């Protein structure tokens, strides 16, 4: 693995891909990888993009990437696609939905299938983002589809969070408002040439007025991605947010929170692994669980007992993590 990290440091793209795969596949070496690359992170600006299907996100992202590229930035893109619940397989078609980006050598594009992870995807995605950051990519764009909890969790890892909607969503707009709109920094109304664009803008402005938390006033940008309209304005809005983050110190605060979150999550991962392993291997614990299954003991009481047993073994240097 040292060879791989070495190649990674020397900007070998294949090495980057391999490391990402190892994280995707839950490799046992994952912790080592993350520890090795962590010091190199912190320079990239991460942009999270989501929205309902049909909003034209891919086209928009494609055009935005061109703006970044024109300013000499290297760009990484992470496209999240749903895995089939039944087969576990996935159709990763995002590359070709972008007219230009996938052909540009200055862009690194990776598709990521959710693999039924539900709540668990966001941490994987955040690790992959960190690896791309450590690789030296100036801008990283994470694109997901949908407006649910999973998408919200993912784009929480971004510095600038962008939600793309379109006119004519009807009920979907309500669902949008209930969840993800709360956390966005930039709102885009794409396909703005369609009737109803102004209604969406009005709707969003009302919601923002009622939202009192942040010091940053989320911007609303109208675009027609297919016609190349509004892209420059969007690019500038993103830059403004980026500047705001660094000037106001909010950026540092968010990054700090993410470090903490990573740490907490790592702790939880270790604990979970340890618990699972203990349950599998320690006879004493297996017996307790059997009793739980038979209904002979209150599950909550059993939990306390098992915990005590695990801690005792751990303290006595028993089960290795």
């Amino acid at each position, binding site marked *: 693995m040292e060879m791989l990290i070495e190649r990674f440091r020397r900007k070998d793209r294949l090495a980057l891909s391999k490391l990402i795969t190892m994280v995707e596949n839950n490799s046992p070496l994952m912790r080592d990888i993350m520890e090795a690359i962590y010091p190199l992170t912190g320079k990239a600006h991460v942009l999270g993009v989501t929205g309902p299907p049909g909003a034209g996100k891919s*086209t928009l992202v494609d055009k935005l990437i061109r703006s970044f590229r024109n300013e000499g930035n290297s760009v990484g893109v992470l496209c999240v696609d749903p895995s089939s619940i039944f087969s576990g397989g996935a*159709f990763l*078609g995002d590359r070709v*939905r972008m007219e230009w980006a996938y052909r540009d050598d200055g862009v690194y594009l990776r598709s990521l299938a959710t693999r039924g992870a539900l709540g668990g995807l966001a941490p994987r995605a955040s690790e992959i983002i960190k690896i791309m950051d450590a690789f030296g990519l100036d801008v990283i764009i994470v694109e997901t589809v949908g407006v649910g909890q999973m998408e919200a969790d993912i784009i929480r890892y971004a510095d600038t969070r962008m939600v793309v909607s379109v006119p004519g969503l009807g009920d979907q707009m309500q669902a949008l408002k209930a969840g993800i709109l709360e956390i966005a920094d930039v709102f885009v109304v794409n396909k703005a040439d369609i009737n109803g664009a102004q209604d969406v803008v009005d709707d969003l402005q009302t919601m923002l007025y009622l939202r009192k938390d942040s010091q940053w006033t989320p911007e609303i940008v109208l675009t027609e991605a*297919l016609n190349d309209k509004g892209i420059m304005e969007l690019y500038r809005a993103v830059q403004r947010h980026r500047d705001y983050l660094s000037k106001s110190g909010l950026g540092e605060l968010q990054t700090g929170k993410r470090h903490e979150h990573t740490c907490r999550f790592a702790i939880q991962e270790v604990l979970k692994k340890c618990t699972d392993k203990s349950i599998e291997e320690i006879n004493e614990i297996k017996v307790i669980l059997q009793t739980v299954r038979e209904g002979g003991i209150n599950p909550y009481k059993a939990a306390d007992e098992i915990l005590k047993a695990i801690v005792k073994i751990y303290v006595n240097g028993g089960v290795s993590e």
Partner: protein
Amino acid sequence: MTNNKQEKATAEILRENLKGTEKGQVYDPTYLKKVKEGLDSWKENVVKPDALKNWDAIPLTVLGSEIPREMVYTPLSVANNDYGEQLGNPGEEPFTRGIHSNMYRGRTFTQRQLVGFGGPEDTNQRIKYLLNHGATGINLLFDMPTIQMYDCDDPMATGSVGSCGVSVNHVKDWELLYDGIDIAKETSSIVTHYPSNSACLFPMYLVMAEKKGIPWDQLKGSIQNDMTLEELVRNSSEYIPPKDCFRIECDNIEFIRKNVPKWNFITINGYNFREFGTSGVTEMAVAAAHGMAILDEMVRRGYEVDWVAERLAFFWSGGMDFFEEVCRLRAMRRLWYRILKYKYKAKNDRSTWMRCHLQTSGISLVREEPYNNIIRSSYEALAAVLGGVQSLHVDSYDEAISVPSEEASLISLRTQQIIEHETGITSVVDPLGGSYYVEALTNEMEERILAEISEIEKQGGYVEAIANGYLSRKIFNYMTKEQMRIEKGEIKIVGHNFQKSGQGEDFESFRYPEECEEIQLQRLHEHKQNRENAKVEQALNELRGACKDGKNIMEYTVNCSRVGCTVGEQWKVFKEVFGLWKKPSMF
């Protein structure tokens, strides 16, 4: 262009108009009663109970419609089939029996074989070979780069030049292609599938004619110019939006109708759509909806319906379900007549004719025991002739493996010639007419096609049904279901999933001259050096303007050809002005 939601469905219009028609009594009621009694008695006493239980059978074939068939058909099946209303005499409304009174006695089905491979000079030789062996027309196929409008020096073209069709990039290539061939005499079906590539390639043929001193009104032939192919059937990394593609299609039609009067400006698909994976019923419904969209647009542009309808032609696929194939041709002829008469109020008979070219199905042919494919194509060809097509192409037996060899091409031609000259079937018009089965199935198919037309109308019409992905999904569903059926052996294909013998592995297939890619590249390079690039730039700019301003595009692409623009250069202008369309995903 979008269908007015207040408009009546075509089915409704037809129903209203046919309601009051006088129907003669086909059979004497007493006679019918006797027949019925005889039939009932037969069912009770002669037919085995098992057979009675399974009275309806559904033949499962490749690209079939899964229409149930009764075990036997009798006068009762066609008791109300008024001859005048449902059949008519050949050459008389409703044209079920044929668009001409004497059909093949007067004019045989044109025997045209697809030709095209390598560079222009390679194909030129093959054309001459086929003409010398009795082919009565040229059916020209281009290579993938040309079809998809990539010049041979585009990175996408690398390695594909000349492999399954002829490579042409500019007018000089055309002149080599037709060297020594009299285009005033020979009709050419130029397989330019799409509106976009028709707009770029056909003008080159016209400019070539100009240079040979042949006036355009002497040119005879056809192009495909079909939006179904560009937007629905083809695989591509880039599409222009359906409404713009439709506009180009209509511009092409308008220009050609005005300036090249003997040329068939569209061959409504049909074939490729069905081959992708759908039934014969859907194939015809989509083609009909397409035809109607064109007529609506031309009327909107201020033309009389007949002006375009007179020259509309269809291009069908010929599948393996023998009677389904015969009957749907008859059904479509009648249906198209009714649509043109009652919905569009066409004034001439010519406008109501469903004239068509048919190609036997390529998808029905398999690799194993390839000579079996000759038999399959023969039956498909026979059905087509019994169904009354105007021209025919028989697929070669090695179609499933590569571009046809000379020998295979010849056999295809012979298939048609044997049908025409040895079987005697062309001495009678509509020989299957009057068969209880054939008439009953013809009626059934007409109903089904009309029902699917109504579905498309509910989507907002043909263009919208493409834009919103409805038709794509329909294909996908049919295709995956059929694939399953073949794998499970429910659809039997002899030698492939049924009665396998393992033969047919040692097969010498056609080799195309691979060096043509280098030759074409060199030729293109020289062409670009020798032409006046300032004029090229100007012509392309004018084309750009015409696209934006809604002018007729073909007027400008003709000009582009005159100054030596390539196909790829013109396609780039379309993409630039119209933008790219994100095709809805199939799955």
